[in-house]
């Protein structure tokens, strides 16, 4: 049974991670002071905190730019991945044509494509969206294909004996069964989408957290670079949490056939 709204239980879950993070921050602060590390080389957490506090509005504007790029890229990615995965599952010819291309596309270092994209589509939002799509569509497609494909054969036969058309089997059986895999891919995509945005901005932009890191780094404003990193991490975690929330909601509506969480070691 799922215990809902149990705040205490949720808090207990988070204690190990939060405690470790706090311990690391304290160690960092102390070590920087004790070893007298130069501020421009490695600022202590207190200075980074002050930087975030001091230029919060400025940082927020750039976070917003990056977030918009990510959301558009993510939406395009999900749509593209859905089309590709459906095509692959639907037809062997499509699979043979497209699948190798998808895999090959991932062997090309995307970071080398970024400068080309700037030349081709310019420095506006489009180039960033394309880089994000290149980073995120792969984990979504791969997971979606395996989710759609590994449907219980007996379930498929049951649908067929009830007179289902291939389209009905796809819509009413395969899509709901593929949801857990789809969200597994989406979680990976949420995290790498932030990397995609930073790389896209690095090579040609006039705003965003990636741009900010590049500019501040060039001027040895190390605290500002760290401030951008902190905000990027928060952004990635927020995106991840949003996907997890969607996953929870959707799996409550469409529970998977095997819905027990197995933890080896706690048998």
């Amino acid at each position, binding site marked *: 049974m799922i215990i809902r709204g149990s705040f205490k239980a949720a808090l207990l879950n988070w204690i190990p991670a939060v405690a470790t993070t706090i311990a690391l921050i304290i160690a960092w602060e102390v070590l920087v002071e004790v070893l007298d590390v130069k501020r421009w080389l490695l600022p202590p957490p207190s200075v980074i905190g002050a930087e975030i506090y001091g230029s919060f509005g400025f940082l927020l504007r750039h976070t917003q730019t990056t977030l918009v790029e990510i959301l558009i890229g993510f939406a395009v990615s999900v749509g593209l991945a859905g089309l590709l995965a459906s095509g692959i599952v639907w037809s062997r010819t499509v699979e043979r044509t497209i699948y190798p291309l998808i895999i090959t596309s991932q062997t090309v270092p995307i970071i080398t494509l970024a400068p080309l994209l700037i030349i081709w589509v310019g420095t506006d939002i489009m180039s960033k969206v394309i880089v994000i799509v290149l980073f995120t569509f792969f984990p979504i497609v791969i997971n979606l294909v395996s989710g759609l494909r590994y449907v219980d054969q007996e379930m498929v036969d*049951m*649908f*067929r004996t*009830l*007179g*289902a058309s291939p389209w*009905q089997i796809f819509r009413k059986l395969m899509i709901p069964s593929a949801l857990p895999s789809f969200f597994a891919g989406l979680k990976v995509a949420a995290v790498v989408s932030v990397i995609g945005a930073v790389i896209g901005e690095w090579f040609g932009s006039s705003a965003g957290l990636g741009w900010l890191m590049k500019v501040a780094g060039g001027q040895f404003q190390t605290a500002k670079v760290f401030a951008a990193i902190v905000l990027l991490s928060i952004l990635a975690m927020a995106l991840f949490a949003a996907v997890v929330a969607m996953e929870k909601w959707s799996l409550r509506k469409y*529970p998977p056939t095997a819905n027990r969480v197995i933890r080896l070691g706690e048998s």
Partner: protein
Amino acid sequence: MSSASQQTNTGIDESVDSKNALLSVSSVGFDYENAAILENVNLSVTKGEFVALVGPSGCGKSTLLNLISGVLSVRTGHIRSGEHVSRTDRIGNVSYMQQKDLLLPWRSVATNSQLGLELRGGSRSESNAQVRKLAESFGLADVLNSMPWQLSGGMRQRVALLRAVLPDNPVLLLDEPFGALDAITRSTLQQWLLNVLDTSNKAVVLVTHDVEEAILLADRVLVMTANPGQIIGEVKIDFGDSSSDAEVTTSPEFMIFKRRILDLLRVQEIAP
């Protein structure tokens, strides 16, 4: 059994494909990876008749049901269900309840039950009305809005049966419907199944490895052998007027039927 379907039945031995049979299987053979699973299987079931197939595991009982329902294609022979002759015609027009309940975990009892009607494009309200009409006799009236995980194994099987019979096809196939249930639940459901099907005019084929279940439910028990799967004998079941479960299972006739079936099964066990 329109004249049109008879014409497409080219090459069928008329004596086997008796005209008043709802379901007729003639000289059916099936291979899997070069191994003969079924060889020359003949079977015909008339309206309102209940036939049970018993045999050791691996004798191809379930394969035969998959062939009749159209999930698999025959290698040789012909199958006719009502007026549906070709495999693509039969699939979707033969009711088939598999061994597992195969309920969709994201659908309620009501929406699981009406899946077949929904796939045929029936209107939602009409499907709903049909489910409601039968839910009472299936003992599901109070749980229509429950989710599958809230139900007992016996209830889940009843939902699966309701889903199979709602499209109202003339032929109903049951593949060990109570195989996974405990003895008490099974016995209750066997009695219930007899009552539910009593008034129907369906041709029913039950696959089971439980000889007593076969005798209790069927009008005819066909005994199968393995490697390759064949029907080697038939025992007609008739208890006259006795009706109650207990009366039947403890009667001397029951023991005689059981003995005959076990003898048929034993012959193949000893054979090399």
